[in-house]
């Protein structure tokens, strides 16, 4: 691990101001950052510990939603009775991620900022445009079983590994931030992560020093909430494909459906027009497949991940069938 200085932030404003320094990084749970620092994929020179800023509360909002502090641990969020009762897709997605030990450390804000699990990103001896801009992408013609089939570019085909973010996407969460100049803003989760394009090293719309302070959930929409994760082993593995869905249906008819995918793209993948196909339609295999067709339009495999398109289709159809069975 490269040397760095360590400091405990005393306030949100002080932390954001300190983090403007080139080479500075916030640390909260540290489960992803320290892993990458050991490999020298991340080499911050200044770590700003934000664990003592009292950002670990979960509050009801006046609108009937929830405001989740940035350092709320993944395990605490998954176990919160309000989340379990009203945001089951979020609780289930969190419980599908990592291990119990990691969930006890990993935070809401940190989970949103976790880096890809692309093997070549992790291996500093290999080209990677995300880690080392301009060096190339070894995954394009390498081992790309876990890589993206949607939203990728000729520069990078890495996926976002978060389960939590998929649930946030389907719940229309907003990311609240504080800036070094004292300002704050709310970023819709749909706009928070950026596609790689020509700059895969830039993964979010956060500006230098800008700190996530909370994630806000609107009131839950009506319907059954499901999170289904498909992976190489039954537990403690990243998603090859996952689906978070909220489906309002009865008597064989769908009133509304929303769904987002993990494992397919550089960000949680949700396609509004595919959801519209299902609105006020009969719950049937043909309508579910029609929705999948729209999601997978333009999907491109790179050899090792060609299986993901049919797997995503089958997973979506299974989840929708389960959601509309009652």
């Amino acid at each position, binding site marked *: 691990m490269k*040397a760095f200085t*360590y400091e405990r932030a005393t306030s949100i404003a002080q932390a954001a101001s300190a983090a403007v320094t080139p080479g500075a990084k916030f640390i909260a749970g540290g489960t992803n950052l*320290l*892993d990458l620092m050991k490999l020298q994929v991340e080499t911050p020179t200044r770590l700003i510990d934000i664990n003592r800023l009292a950002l670990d509360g979960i509050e009801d909002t006046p609108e009937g939603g929830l405001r989740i502090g940035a350092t709320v641990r993944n*395990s605490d969020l998954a176990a919160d009775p309000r989340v379990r009762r009203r945001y*089951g897709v979020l609780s289930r997605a969190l419980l599908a991620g990592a291990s*119990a030990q990691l969930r006890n450390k990993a935070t809401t804000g940190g989970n949103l900022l976790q880096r890809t699990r692309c093997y070549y990103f992790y291996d500093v001896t290999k080209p990677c445009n995300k880690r080392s801009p301009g060096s190339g992408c070894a995954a394009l013609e390498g081992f790309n079983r876990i890589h993206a089939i949607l939203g990728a570019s000729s520069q990078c085909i890495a996926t976002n590994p978060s389960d939590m973010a998929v649930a946030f996407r389907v719940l229309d969460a907003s990311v609240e931030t504080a800036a070094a100049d004292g300002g704050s803003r709310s970023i819709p989760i749909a706009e928070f992560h950026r596609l790689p394009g020509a700059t895969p090293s830039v993964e979010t719309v956060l500006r230098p020093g800008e700190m996530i302070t909370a994630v806000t959930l609107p009131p839950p929409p009506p319907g059954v909430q499901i999170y289904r994760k498909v992976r190489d082993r*039954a537990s403690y593995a990243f998603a090859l494909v996952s689906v978070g869905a909220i489906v309002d249906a009865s008597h064989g008819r769908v009133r509304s459906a929303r769904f987002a995918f993990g494992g397919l793209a550089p960000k949680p993948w949700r396609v509004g027009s595919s959801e519209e196909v299902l609105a006020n339609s009969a719950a049937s295999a043909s309508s579910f497949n029609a929705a999948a067709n729209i999601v997978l339009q333009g999907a491109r495999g790179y050899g090792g991940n060609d299986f993901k398109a049919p797997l995503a289709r089958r997973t979506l159809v299974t989840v929708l069938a389960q959601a509309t069975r009652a």
Partner: protein
Amino acid sequence: MDHDENEQLRITRRGALEAGAATAALAYAGILPAALAAGSPVPEPRLDAVWVELQVNGSPHRLSLDPRTTLLDAMREHLHLTGSKKGCDHGQCGACTVLLDGRRINSCLTLAVMHDGHAIETIEGLASGEALHPLQAAFIEHDGFQCGYCTSGQICSALGMLHESRTGMPSYVTADLTQARAELTDIEIRERMSGNICRCAAYPNIVAAIRQAAEQLS
């Protein structure tokens, strides 16, 4: 070369290694110029040590640490509590599992300086004198290991897991997330313990040991 010469060579090599490590440690502590350590001409960047007080197994320990020191290395290398094991050092195996303020974590993936004033419980703190903790006794009774390298992590993890279960934490395999407390079936135990890998694959015996201890402790 006869046996005695072999023995002498081995001892000499070991002595040299220890002497080298001691020199490096002195240089690191700023007592010797860094250039003298291991013949390296490039000095390490000057690091500011950070004071941290850890409550480990009920006893306070005040340490001055390089901020890079993980909680695992602080315990093993500075406090000489080597029960917590370094397996992968990347949070993938669970051998380093300890309890931090009562919750299980991977001690390899956190910095010691982040835990000033926090309480840490390691495998060394579980027994009461000569009386083993019920989880320790159950692992022996059910042969919940072969090589034993993952065992301290498994036991600390199981202790944290049983607390989570008692306080109503659901798991990915809990059918109804709204129920107050899921029954601790074998499937639940396996899912909740998935962060602890056993290379010897003693899993059936580990599950049996945890099931027995869970009944005793409930």
